[in-house]
């Protein structure tokens, strides 16, 4: 069965420190993976997707098929990065997209 696991409910770091939000998935095929972000009082929105291999707002994520992980990283956290982050998986039929439980990132000044 498809599953997305985000083991940390809350992650607190100081401004300027590196940050890594963990995401592991369970899927028998080749998934498409995404990170979504929800800033305070805003709607949930796409942050980045693995097929684009892009860096958005300094964040990157690498798909590791061996470890079935898609961790989100940023070398120097900023206060404006404080938000709720969700890892998501879409099956290759493009049908269902499922989400992890989310990690709340709090960047302290």
């Amino acid at each position, binding site marked *: 069965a498809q599953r997305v696991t985000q083991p940390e409910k809350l992650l607190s770091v100081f401004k300027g420190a590196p940050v890594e939000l963990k995401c592991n998935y369970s899927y028998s095929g080749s998934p498409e993976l995404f990170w979504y972000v929800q800033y305070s009082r805003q709607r949930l929105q796409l942050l980045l997707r693995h097929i684009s291999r892009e860096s958005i707002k300094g964040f990157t994520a690498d798909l590791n098929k061996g470890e079935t992980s898609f961790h989100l990283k940023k070398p120097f956290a900023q206060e404006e990065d404080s938000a709720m982050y969700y890892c998501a998986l879409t099956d290759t039929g*493009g049908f269902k997209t499922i989400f992890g439980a989310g990690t709340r990132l709090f960047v302290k000044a």
Partner: protein
Amino acid sequence: GAGVSQSPSNKVTEKGKDVELRCDPISGHTALYWYRQRLGQGLEFLIYFQGNSAPDKSGLPSDRFSAERTGESVSTLTIQRTQQEDSAVYLCASSFRQGASPLHFGNGTRLTVT
């Protein structure tokens, strides 16, 4: 153009009453999803519509829940005989096509069952 629109933004209802939640997707988006987000928890998949195909209802938690979509436009999520455990934010999302297209979310409907 406008994003995904959901109404009402807030709904308070008494236990046992029926409620209807509405979602207007982005024009041209063929896929539409409903998710439930309970307080402090992640997004729980409820139902998925793709064009004229039969919807994927595998996430609906009970037969009190149902959803319809008219063509590739408006969708309504109906909860009959509401229970307190139905209290949550109900999120709607749409996307242009299947596969790698990202989801565009509405602001959600916060449902409170008293």
